[in-house]
């Protein structure tokens, strides 16, 4: 029954999308400046019906209706309720439904929040967005239908992967989708603006909120994904430059660049076509990311199950999108004279875009290069963290300095950047850096540079906070948070301590300034797994701290998997991170211990970064 309801609603939505396209197209020709009531009504209907469709799928998971293949493959009656619900979007088919929901809701909301803007611009946005919706609806119905059923229905499901049963991972997809799927709306709006020649500052005002929404959520989505990786994957890192991680970062770079260039478009009415390119690029990168992740051409920790037929469909969709938008861009392009004053804010916005493009190209190249060398010369290579770190980090050092100076430049001509203050800030930064590294004895040159430049940004932003007139609080928060983020990452990386050793039960080992004692192992039975929990006492001989950490080795029933759960002990100064694994044919257990300073501040910084985006959104919405 649920299967039929779901299928019906999907088909209904295809019909409604087509109707919207039809009526909107007709509406274009009317002479008044009003959008017909029909278009509004059908949009409301469309949003309602897709939400009902989604809740139908959620219900199927909740009641464990195994007659639906998706529920059968990804759920189990013993799953806790929370994870039954989040299991809805934790699989390929269900997540595509989430795609369509975001596409549809954004389509509707954009329509009703843009009343002050020209009718045809809004109509074309609606039309193009609905073509995107149709594309995904057809993909779902023809290839990846969460409502397809099996008869007779099996009595039990195959179970959700235990690694995916985590609160952070449950909210990770919805957050990310509001981010990069939400970028679809300004993709459509960009094409609409080119077609209707709606190209001045008002266009920037029209899409600014949407760019802010998608950017803020994308930031949060990436944050939650990293937190999950840190807690669940057991290696103590939070970013691995894995292709799937990169797929979420690439749109983020484009969005950040777009955010900044919109400032220029809004205030100075230039950089229109560059902003358009960024609008198109963001969503193209999002769809490309989806393609890479679901088609099976990448080898990654995070990949969904692989299926080349999905790949072909998404690739065709991606190609049509790219070729259509490039065609319109080329036919509508008018060489405009870009007037940039040196030492003005426009220059610094361009500098931001310049660096964002560098980061984007680096990550894009690193992610795609193995695919290319394999296809062309049949030689498989790997591109991992050492590549990205060595290429990007030196550039970040310079970038941070620009981030500090840029916002204080004036829009038109800047007489002279207040050199004295910046000199003082630089000296202060160098001084603080010296103190940090003097007390903790670390001489890596690049760490020093990172700390100095991030301190520079931090101190400048703090000084900005105390300026009374004409300052932008959200911007200061975001720039300050970014400075802190880089600072904390630098300090954390530089002062982390790692010990890798083997212990038997009852044994004590001392390594440098730490003493480890494996007290005992306990066998525990939980709802859907058995666990071996170790009690490991850690003595930090320098700080005189003593903690007992409890790493676990878990054996899940459905499906049969073995996982290693890290024991993490957090406070505001440092994290203790410990994993234990058994060694085949031996009494010894392999212990990996890490002391990671300031870990929690890394999360806090990213959350604050996103907060700046939300504050800016509220500010902009209030003023308009």
């Amino acid at each position, binding site marked *: 029954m649920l299967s039929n309801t779901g299928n019906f609603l999907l088909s209904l939505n295809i019909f409604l999308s087509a109707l919207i396209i039809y009526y909107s197209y007709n509406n274009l020709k009317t002479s008044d400046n009003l959008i017909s009531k029909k278009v509004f009504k059908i949009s409301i209907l469309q949003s309602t019906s897709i939400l009902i469709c989604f809740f139908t799928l959620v219900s199927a998971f909740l009641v464990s209706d195994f007659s639906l293949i998706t529920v059968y493959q990804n759920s189990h009656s013993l799953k806790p309720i929370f994870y039954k619900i989040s299991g809805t979007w934790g699989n390929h088919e269900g997540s595509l439904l989430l795609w369509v929901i975001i596409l549809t809701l954004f389509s509707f909301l954009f329509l009703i929040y843009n009343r002050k803007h020209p009718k045809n611009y809004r109509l074309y946005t609606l039309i193009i967005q609905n073509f995107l919706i149709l594309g995904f609806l057809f993909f779902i119905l023809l290839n990846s239908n969460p409502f397809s059923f099996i008869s007779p229905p099996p009595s039990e499901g195959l179970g959700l992967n235990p690694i995916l049963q985590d609160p952070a991972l449950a909210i990770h997809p919805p957050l990310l989708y509001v981010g990069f799927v939400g970028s679809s709306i300004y993709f459509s709006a960009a094409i609409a603006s080119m077609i209707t020649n709606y190209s001045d500052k008002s266009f920037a005002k029209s899409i600014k909120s949407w760019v802010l929404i998608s950017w803020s959520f994308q930031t949060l989505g990436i944050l939650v994904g990293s937190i999950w990786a840190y807690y669940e994957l057991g290696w103590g890192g939070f970013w691995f430059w894995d292709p799937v991680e990169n797929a979420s970062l690439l749109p983020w770079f484009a969005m950040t660049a777009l955010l900044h260039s919109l400032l220029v478009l809004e205030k100075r009415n230039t950089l229109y076509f560059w902003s358009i390119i960024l609008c198109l690029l963001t969503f193209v990168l999002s769809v490309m990311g989806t*393609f890479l992740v679901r*088609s*099976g*051409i*990448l*080898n990654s920790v995070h990949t969904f199950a*692989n299926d*080349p037929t999905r*790949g*072909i469909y998404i*690739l065709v969709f*991606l*190609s049509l999108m*790219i*070729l259509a938008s*490039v065609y319109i861009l*080329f036919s509508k*392009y008018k*060489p405009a004279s870009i007037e940039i004053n040196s030492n003005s804010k426009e220059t610094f916005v361009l500098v931001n875009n310049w660096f964002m493009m560098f980061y984007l190209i680096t990550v894009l190249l690193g992610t*795609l290069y193995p*695919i*290319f060398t*394999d*296809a*062309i010369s*049949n030689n*498989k290579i790997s591109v991992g963290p050492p590549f990205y770190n060595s290429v990007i980090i030196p550039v970040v050092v310079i970038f941070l300095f620009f981030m500090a100076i840029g916002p204080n430049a004036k829009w038109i001509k800047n007489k002279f950047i207040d050199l004295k203050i910046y000199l003082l800030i630089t000296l202060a930064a160098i001084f603080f850096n010296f103190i940090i590294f003097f007390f903790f004895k670390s001489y890596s040159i690049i760490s020093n540079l990172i700390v100095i430049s991030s301190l520079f940004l931090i101190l400048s932003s703090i000084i900005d906070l105390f300026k009374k007139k004409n300052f932008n609080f959200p911007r200061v928060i975001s720039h300050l948070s970014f400075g802190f983020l880089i600072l904390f990452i630098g300090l954390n990386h530089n002062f982390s301590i790692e010990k890798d050793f083997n212990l038997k039960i009852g044994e004590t080992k001392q390594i440098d300034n730490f003493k480890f004692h494996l007290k005992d192992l306990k066998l525990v039975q939980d709802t859907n797994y058995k666990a071996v929990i170790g009690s490991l006492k850690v003595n930090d001989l320098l700080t005189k701290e003593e903690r007992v950490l409890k790493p676990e080795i878990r054996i899940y029933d459905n499906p049969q998997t073995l996982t290693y759960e890290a024991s993490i002990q957090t406070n505001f100064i440092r994290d203790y991170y410990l994993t234990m694994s058994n060694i085949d*044919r031996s009494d010894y257990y392999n212990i990996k211990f890490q002391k990671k300073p300031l870990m929690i501040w890394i999360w806090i910084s990213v959350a604050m970064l996103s907060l700046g985006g939300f504050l800016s959104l509220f500010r902009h919405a209030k003023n308009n």
Partner: protein
Amino acid sequence: MQKTIKLITVSLLVFILGIFYLSLNRSSNYDTKFLVGNKLTDIELKSLQSKEFFTNDDFKNNKYTLINFWASWCAPCRVEHPYLMMLSKNKDIKILGINFKDKKINALKFLEELGNPYDYLAKDNNGKQSVNFGIYGIPESILIDNKFNILKKIIGPLNEKDIKEIKEIIKS
């Protein structure tokens, strides 16, 4: 100028999309089967049954040697064993068996039970020697000539096709 930029952009995009399409049917899993042509150097293996060592000198007079990494605790090794027995009857090839991370008693019991195809029996108790041969799992086999060139790598248990191909190579 504008026309060339447009042309370059479109060509680049078509190229990228083309590569994506071509990559759809390729496997993203990695194996070392293609790593032929290199030479094996510095062979220094402990014998399983005596205190002696095997070195390059022991094998340089064989036209062809098949190096087979195996263990008594490895199930696929049992599956491939009949093929090794078959191959051991062939006079053009000698077989070196390297017992991997195993106990001598279990290894000898295994050979007693299923037969001993090996002209040479060596051991690699901690697995370190296997890295010298580019091994990353067992069973794995390497076919070399008298100049120690790697002619063929077989990842996983030997099957009928592999034996056929080996026989082809050693006939010439």
